[in-house]
């Protein structure tokens, strides 16, 4: 069936209007990312709204429970992992398969460490609020703190995206190790890259909104 499908597809594709000039996969991916933009932007807008309503308390909780140190490290990690991915693509374009695997491996490390540090951050926030305001641990404390509930929700959904990214990366690596990618054919890798950079991009904004603007 697979080959039959491919034959039909080729036949019809040879007889198409020029369209956008972008491959289906890439076009689809960007449209998907556009909808992800709305999703995250709306969440961020909601959080900023809540923050404006609760400016004072937000400030206090922020002061007490959020430190920029680890998050800055996380920002660097994500930036590095992004550059690893483009490097991997660059490598496969030049036919350096082993370098591609190397860069992908580094990306995997980056993503995983990011997730680990993120969990430390959750703990830190929870401890901070417990200590200074006597709130309950984790989500229980968040029921009394707009900052904590916003923080868990935003970083949680971002973290979920990183996690999915790591799963995708595992799949891409499997294909890489199987030798699926060639200098002309690395579609899955490229699609993964777009997703991964997007997740990085979201973090860049989150970092500013949640951490830096106190």
């Amino acid at each position: 069936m697979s080959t039959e499908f491919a034959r039909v597809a080729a036949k019809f594709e040879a007889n198409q209007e020029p369209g956008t000039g972008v491959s289906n996969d890439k076009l689809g991916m960007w449209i998907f990312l556009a909808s992800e933009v709305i999703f995250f932007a709306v969440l961020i807008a909601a959080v900023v709204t809540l923050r404006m309503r609760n400016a004072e308390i937000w400030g206090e909780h922020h002061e007490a429970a959020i430190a920029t140190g680890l998050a800055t490290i996380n920002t660097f990690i994500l930036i590095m992992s992004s550059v690893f991915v483009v490097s991997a693509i660059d490598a496969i374009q030049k036919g350096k398969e082993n370098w591609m695997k190397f860069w992908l491996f580094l990306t995997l490390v980056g993503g995983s460490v990011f997730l680990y540090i993120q969990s430390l951050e959750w703990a830190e926030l929870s401890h901070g609020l417990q200590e200074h305001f006597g709130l309950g641990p984790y989500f229980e404390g968040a029921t009394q703190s707009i900052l904590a509930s916003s923080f868990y929700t935003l970083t949680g959904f971002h973290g979920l995206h990183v996690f999915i990214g790591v799963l995708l990366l595992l799949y891409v690596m499997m294909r890489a190790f199987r030798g699926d990618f060639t200098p002309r054919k690395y579609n899955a890798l490229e699609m993964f890259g777009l997703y991964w950079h997007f997740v990085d991009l979201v973090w860049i904004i989150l970092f500013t909104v949640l951490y830096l603007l106190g």
Partner: protein
Amino acid sequence: MTELFDAERTDVDHREAAHEHHGGSFKLYWIIALVLGGVTVIEVFLAEWLPQQGGLGQYTASIMLALSILKAVLVAAFYMHLKYEKRILTGIFLIPFFLVSLLMLALFGSG
């Protein structure tokens, strides 16, 4: 991504041939990374250290937002290749920002 994208089809056709080596180079990628890192350092500096020195007052937030948007633009333009792609992709990616900014106006206005 996994199998949701049609592996069979993309494997057979020659679309990839279309995307020769346009734009971006290993060196450029790492320069961008350096810039991103540098801007992050500036941001953290603005947020953590400057306030203790009196800071930039009301402008801090706007400056920091501007810096982070700059970073986001760099990522989109170079890592995500928008600079070298067909303009339509840039369009697709920008529309949602425009739409949500309207929502933000209304939300912040009626807080």
